[in-house]
Structures are given as structure tokens and as C-alpha cells.
């Protein structure tokens, strides 16, 4: 397949339709900067891939190359905006791809061109992009793949060109498979760890249970004692319940004895108080008797002194004194007493009043005495009441203490003790009960261990199950490890197959690279270059000249570019899956001197002679002349020179489209002459 034509309109800088037909031999395009030389190559790449890769992902003000694919200049808009690129197969049949601003290429057309340009069996995924990048040699690519390119990038470029195209597929499958099996190994290992922990826990449980088990003789003794304690003939495994009840009863009895001890101390105190109370009671009774006697005596004396109360006597005294005062005030009235109307003399009257006054005073004195007696009697009565109350209180205390003592003695009796039991007896009893309780509890613990036998059996079963589970997980882990080892082997085999086949193919390609380097001869001294692959995981394509010198630090910019050009051409000529026999050079001699431009022309001539279609754009018309002369022309119509530039209106167009003629033959050497033999 070779390029047949490029037809553009409204594309990039081309407003009007421009079509360039490419002969099978070579085409040299020249023109000053900005006349659309690169656009011809852009059109080929855009038709095949729908983009222009040299701009990469560059953006500016949120614009990308996609915003500048179609014509955006000033003036009259283009009549159409499209790109059409034709390819011609060996049978001269032409296949075209057309992309327009409003209609993209038909997928079936693209697929057809892809099948014709690339071997369907061996081409990589999305083959058109690497095909363009290997077939359209641009200054940007030359610079990128000059000696300053990273060795890994250089290796990758070559690997993509000549490596087994499905190698990455198998490596990826191997990698994913190894990851899956690796994950399974990890999961199985986690299961093994978990099972091992379960097993260890089961073993520990058995150890713990065994540690809790006691001697059989101890168990029998405990059983006997508990039977004795409980009075039960229950079998050992049924003895725990009554034993616990007995233990509770023992504890209750200890509490009872402890209570008796407290009661004993209280009763002893009560007994000590009874004597005191009795003494106080006797004293109170004596005081009561005395108060009663005094009261009787006072009453007798009161009876003898007057029968009139102190109040009556006092009133009589006051009345008599008032009557005397009245009589004295009235005086005798006609010799008659105003009070009693009896005839009295004044003297008698006066004497009578004095006597009355004397009597009134006596009455008053009697009243005073009577009051004193009454008060004494009242005091005696109060004393008698108080004494009686004291007696009553002491009696009550006495009775209370006696009752308390009697009640405690009844408790003692109820507890099976003598009423006069000593506190030491109670303590002895408490200690005895405590010892029995402790013994019973210990015995209870011993017979409780009988249950551990069941637990031990269960633990042994659990350990067996855990051991089985552990064994199963180990088996699973073993299988997972085997699968992982196999996956790793497959992954390694895929990588080795890729690397070794690539190395094998590199061995085929490296002579070409060395030859192209030698032909382009970037450096006057270092005529040969050595390409070395190194690295196991990350692979590098290292370039060396002379005695393992790195040309990156020796070569000039132009020399580096010439080296990069040699590499790019090697890649193009090595593309195993490409059927496209065109090499497009987009101004390949920037920064390259005239001498090396001549050498590039010689290389192009040999490529053309070998059947490659050469399409080369240069800015220098003299170089274009050289190329037109130097590249071979078998017959008319095999080569062409095109000059691009603006027309009178400034519209980019073809200024020259000239078929080139073959050069004269046998001008110097008259006829082919063969050496004998």
C-alpha cells in the first residue's frame, strides 16, 4: 500500500481545495515556512486516526488541537471542510478515507483501510496510531528520539514496532492470573492462621480442663463427706444440689451462732444492769413510802388546825376588816352600833371595833397558816407522785431486763444450749461450724470437677474438629500455592517469551540500525554505533560509540538528530505488521548540516530503490533540487516535485506540480560490464 493522494479543503491553513497526487516513486514538496507542507502530513494522520498526535494533549485557554483542525482564518470561509486521503494497493486499486467537519469517516471504511495497511494477524491494538508515528517522520519525533530520549522510551518504541504484538496481552493475562492466585494464597494463608488459632485454643482449653481435674481419692472422700453432710445417698453427679443447700444451711447456722454471741453479750450486760435497777427501785420505793408518810402527817395536822380552807379564812378576814372599817366610818348612831344596832357606848363601841379588828387579824393569820399547810401537803403529794413514777420506771426496766435475759436464754435453749451457756461455748460452736462449712465448700468444689470430665470430652471433640479444619485449610493453601507457582511460571514464561522473542528480533534489527547510523554518519570520528539492550524488569536501549562512550554527551544537536533519524528509519523498516510502504519525511533536516542532508538523500534514494514510496517536505529549494536528482526514477510518472505557497490572493495552493523524468542512463559507463566469474 502506498499513498495515492491527499485532498484537503478548509483543513488547517488550507481554505481552498488542494489535491496532491503522489506517484509510486517519490514526491518532493518544498515551500517556505507556513505554506502548508506539514499540513499535508497532518491530513494523512488525521484521516487515519482522527487527530494529530504531534500536539499531544497540549491545551491553551482550554483549547486543544481539536479546535484548530478545520480552517479558522479570516476572509471568505471555505466552500467545504474535509480531508480525503487515498491509498493505492499493489493492484492499483485506490481506497480513500474521508473525514469532514460534519461527518466522520465510516467505520467500515476505516476497518478496510486498517486491514490493508496492517497485517490483521500481527498488528497491535489501535494500530493506526503507531503506524502513523512510525511512517510519518516529523521533526518533533526526530528531536524526541534523538540521543536525548530516555533509554526506556527508546526501548518501548522499538518494542512496539517489532515485538510480538500480543505479548502484552499474554503478559497482562499472566500478571492478572498471578495476582488472582496470589490473592488466593493470601486468603488461604489467613484461613490456615485462623484454623491454627482455633486449634491452639482447643488445645489450651484441654490443658485448662486437665489442670482443673483432681485425684479420684479426693473425689470419693468429698462425696462421702457431702453425703454425710446432706444425708443424701444421691450419686456424685447429683450431689451438688443438696450439698449447696447444706452449705447454705451451715452458713445460716454460723450466722445464728454469731447472732447468739452478740445476744450473749447483750444478755450479760442486761444481767449486770438488773442489780443496779433493783437498787434504784428500792431507793425509789423508800422515797415513795416517805412521801406517803409525810402526806398522811400533813393531812392529820391540817385536819387538826382548821377545817376551813385558807381561801375561806382569808375572805372572812377581809370581810371583818371591811365591816370594822365601815363601823368606824359610820361611828355610833344615837348610841347605837350602826352594824348591829345594839346600844353601846363609844368606848364599848371602840373596844368592840378593836376586838373585831383583832379577830380579823387572827383570821388572816389563820389563813396564812392554812396556805402554808396546804402548800406543804401539795408538795408532799407531788413528791409521792414522783416517787411512785420512779418506782414504776425502775420496775419496768427491771422487768425489761429480766425479759431480755429470759428470751436470750430461751434462744440458747432453742439452739440446743444450756440457758447458762458460756460465750466460749458459743465461739467453739461457731468455729466448728465454720470449719464444717469450709470443708463442705471444698468438697463441693471437688465434686464440681466431675463436670469437667464432660467438658474435657467436648474439648477433645472440638480439638479434633479444629485439627481437621486446620488440615483442610493447609491442604487448600497447598493447592493455592501450587496454583500460584504455576501462575507465576506462566507469567514468567509470557514475559520471557516476549523478552526473548523481542531480543531475537532485535538481533535482526540492530544491524539495520547500525547500518543506517553508518549511512547517516552523524559523527566524523564515531562511524559506528552499538545498540545494547539492558535491564531485566525495565528494559533500556542504550547507545554507545567508541569505547563504551555515551554519544549523548559527545554529539552536537544536529548529530543527535541524525542519530534519532537513523533510529526512526530503523523502526519504520522493521515494522513487521505494516503493509504501508510509504515513508513521509516532514522537514527532516532541521538543524542538520548540508553534508548530512546529502547523506539522508542517499538513504532516501536507497529506500526508494528498495520499493519504498518517499514523500519528503523541505523548506530549502536547493535541497529539494538535490532530492529530485538523487532519488531514482524508473520511468516517467514515478516521481514528482510540488511547490506550495500562497497565490495572489494569499490563499495557500500548489504553485508547482511537476512530474520528474528519469536521468540519462549509461552516460559515463557505456554499457553494463560484468566481471568474469
Amino acid at each position, binding site marked *: 500500500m502506498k499513498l495515492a493522494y491527499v485532498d484537503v479543503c478548509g483543513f488547517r491553513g488550507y481554505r481552498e481545495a488542494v489535491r496532491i497526487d503522489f506517484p509510486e516513486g517519490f514526491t518532493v514538496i518544498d515551500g517556505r515556512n507556513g505554506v502548508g507542507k506539514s499540513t499535508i502530513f497532518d491530513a494523512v494522520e488525521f484521516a487515519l486516526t482522527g487527530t494529530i498526535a504531534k500536539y499531544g494533549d497540549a491545551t491553551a485557554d482550554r483549547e486543544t488541537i481539536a479546535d484548530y483542525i478545520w480552517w479558522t482564518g479570516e476572509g471568505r470561509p471555505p466552500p467545504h471542510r474535509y480531508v480525503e486521503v487515498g491509498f493505492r494497493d499493489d493492484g492499483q486499486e485506490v481506497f480513500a478515507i474521508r473525514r469532514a467537519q460534519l461527518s466522520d469517516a465510516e467505520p467500515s471504511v476505516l476497518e478496510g483501510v486498517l486491514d490493508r495497511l496492517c497485517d490483521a494477524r500481527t498488528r497491535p491494538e489501535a494500530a493506526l496510531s503507531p503506524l502513523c508515528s512510525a511512517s510519518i517522520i516529523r521533526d518533533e519525533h526526530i528531536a524526541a528520539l534523538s540521543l536525548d530520549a530516555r533509554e526506556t522510551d527508546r526501548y518501548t518504541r522499538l518494542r512496539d514496532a517489532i515485538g510480538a504484538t500480543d505479548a502484552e496481552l499474554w503478559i497482562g493475562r499472566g500478571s492478572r492470573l498471578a495476582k488472582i492466585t496470589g490473592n488466593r494464597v493470601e486468603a488461604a494463608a489467613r484461613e490456615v492462621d485462623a484454623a491454627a488459632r482455633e486449634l491452639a485454643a482447643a488445645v489450651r482449653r484441654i490443658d485448662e480442663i486437665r489442670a482443673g481435674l483432681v485425684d479420684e481419692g479426693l473425689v470419693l472422700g468429698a462425696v462421702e463427706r457431702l453425703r454425710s453432710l446432706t444425708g443424701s445417698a444421691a450419686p456424685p453427679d447429683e450431689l451438688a444440689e443438696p450439698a449447696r443447700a447444706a452449705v447454705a444451711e451451715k452458713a445460716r447456722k454460723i450466722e445464728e451462732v454469731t447472732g447468739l454471741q452478740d445476744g450473749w453479750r447483750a444478755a450479760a450486760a442486761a444481767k449486770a444492769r438488773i442489780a443496779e435497777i433493783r437498787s434504784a427501785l428500792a431507793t425509789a420505793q423508800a422515797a415513795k413510802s416517805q412521801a406517803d408518810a409525810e402526806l398522811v402527817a400533813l393531812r392529820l395536822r391540817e385536819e387538826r388546825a382548821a377545817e376551813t380552807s385558807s381561801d375561806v379564812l382569808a375572805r372572812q378576814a377581809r370581810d371583818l376588816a371591811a365591816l370594822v372599817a365601815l363601823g368606824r366610818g359610820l361611828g355610833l348612831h344615837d348610841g347605837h352600833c350602826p352594824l348591829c344596832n345594839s346600844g353601846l357606848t363609844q368606848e364599848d363601841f371602840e373596844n368592840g371595833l378593836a376586838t373585831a379588828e383583832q379577830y380579823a387579824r387572827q383570821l388572816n393569820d389563820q389563813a396564812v397558816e392554812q396556805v402554808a399547810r396546804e402548800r406543804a401537803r401539795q408538795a408532799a403529794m407531788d413528791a409521792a407522785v414522783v416517787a411512785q413514777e420512779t418506782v414504776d420506771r425502775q420496775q419496768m426496766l427491771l422487768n425489761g431486763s429480766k425479759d431480755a435475759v429470759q428470751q436470750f436464754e430461751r434462744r440458747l435453749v432453742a439452739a440446743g444450749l444450756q440457758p447458762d451457756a458460756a460465750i466460749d461455748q458459743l465461739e467453739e460452736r461457731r468455729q466448728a461450724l465454720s470449719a464444717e462449712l469450709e470443708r463442705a465448700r471444698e468438697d463441693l468444689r471437688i465434686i464440681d470437677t466431675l463436670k469437667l470430665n464432660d467438658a474435657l470430652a467436648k474439648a477433645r471433640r472440638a480439638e479434633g474438629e479444629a485439627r481437621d479444619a486446620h488440615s483442610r485449610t493447609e491442604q487448600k493453601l497447598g493447592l493455592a500455592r501450587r496454583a500460584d507457582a504455576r501462575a507465576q511460571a506462566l507469567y514468567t514464561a509470557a514475559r520471557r517469551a516476549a523478552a526473548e522473542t523481542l531480543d531475537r528480533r532485535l538481533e535482526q534489527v540492530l544491524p539495520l540500525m547500525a547500518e543506517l547510523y553508518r549511512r547517516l554518519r552523524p559523527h566524523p570520528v564515531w562511524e559506528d554505533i552499538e545498540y545494547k539492550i539492558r535491564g531485566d524488569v525495565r528494559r533500556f536501549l542504550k547507545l554507545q560509540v567508541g569505547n563504551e562512550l555515551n554519544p549523548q554527551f559527545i554529539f552536537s544537536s544536529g548529530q543527535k538528530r541524525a542519530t534519532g533519524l537513523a533510529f526512526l528509519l530503523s523502526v519504520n523498516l522493521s515494522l513487521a505488521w505494516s503493509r504501508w510502504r510509504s515513508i513521509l519525511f516532514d522537514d527532516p533536516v532541521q538543524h542538520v548540516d548540508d553534508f548530512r542532508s546529502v547523506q539522508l538523500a542517499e538513504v532516501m534514494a536507497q529506500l526508494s530503490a528498495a520499493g519504498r514510496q518517499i514523500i519528503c517536505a523541505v523548506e530549502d529549494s536547493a535541497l529539494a533540487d538535490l532530492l529530485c*536528482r538523487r532519488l531514482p526514477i524508473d520511468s516517467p510518472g514515478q516521481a514528482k516535485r510540488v511547490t506550495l505557497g500562497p497565490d495572489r490572493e494569499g490563499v495557500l495552493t500548489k504553485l508547482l506540480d511537476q512530474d520528474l523524468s528519469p536521468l540519462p542512463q549509461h552516460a*559515463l559507463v557505456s554499457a553494463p560490464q560484468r566481471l568474469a566469474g
Partner: protein
Amino acid sequence: MIDLLEESERLLQNADISTQRIETSRGKALSFESETVLGFMVAYQDSARLIEGWSADTEALVAENQLGLRRAQSKGWNTYTVFLAVAEANYGQRVALSSIEENLAGTRKLARAGISNSEDLRAALLPLLPIQNAPHLEAVDMSAEIKLRTTELPRRVVDAFLSPRAQETSVAQILEEEEEP
């Protein structure tokens, strides 16, 4: 010792370049012509003689073959003059030889020394010869390559891996299940 002119004649003819032994006033030479180029070749004993004589030899060759060069018309622009020496050049001579080559006045020049065998000669005449090492890369059968490197694994395991339709989880299962062969 290699006869440079004779060996060059063989090489050029094998590349479909016509050759002709010629005699000039300065000695023996070889003329050649292909579809696009023509030229002359002169052999020297060593680099010193080459460096000393190339210019005069060129003048003699061009002057004595004017007729043919005129016949060639524009092809005459593609005239090569090739100067070869058997003896190895020292560094200074190599630089001088490079300077001769980089002199584009008149003819395209190839000036090489240290040509002791046909491989050296082939390298010197590369600009005139077709691509020598064009690789012919056949498609790689990765499945076969992987099989070749996994002979220790059960066949069914490798087949499962190489079966593009088999899910990777299914392949992993087969990797676990399949017993050793």
C-alpha cells in the same frame, strides 16, 4: 591484500551499478554508473597518499571524462569520487578524510582508509549500495513460545491459560485442581 578496485567492481555490480576500469594520466581508476549516480574510484596504499593526491586525481578524472559527464546532464550533479586506502588511518588522518567527505564542492566524495577486507569496503561504499540489513520479521506465535517455556506444567493448565475465552478465575481454578503430569 585486498584489491580495492577489483573488489569494489564486484560489489557495485552486485548492486546493479555498471562499472568500467579506466586509466587516467595519474593512474588506474574505476568508473561506475547507476540509475541515479555516476562516479570514479581511486585506490591508494595509505591515507597519506590519499590525502595528498585526491584533489589532483579528482581534477584529472573530471577533466578526462568531460564528455561522459556532459552526456549525463543533470545526473552529473550526482557525481561521486571515491578515494580508498588499505592502510589504517591515524586520528589526524581520519579527521582529514572526514573533511574531504564534508567538502561538497564539485562532487560527492567518499574518502575512507583502513579497508582491509570486503566488509570494510562494503561499509565504505554504503552510500552507493542498497540497504544491506533490511530485516524480515515473521509473526511471533506467542502461544507456541509460552508453551515452549512451560513444559513442566500440566498440558491442560497451559491450554487453559492460552485459551483467550477462558475467564482468568476459571484458569486459576484449573491451576489449583490439575494434578502434576
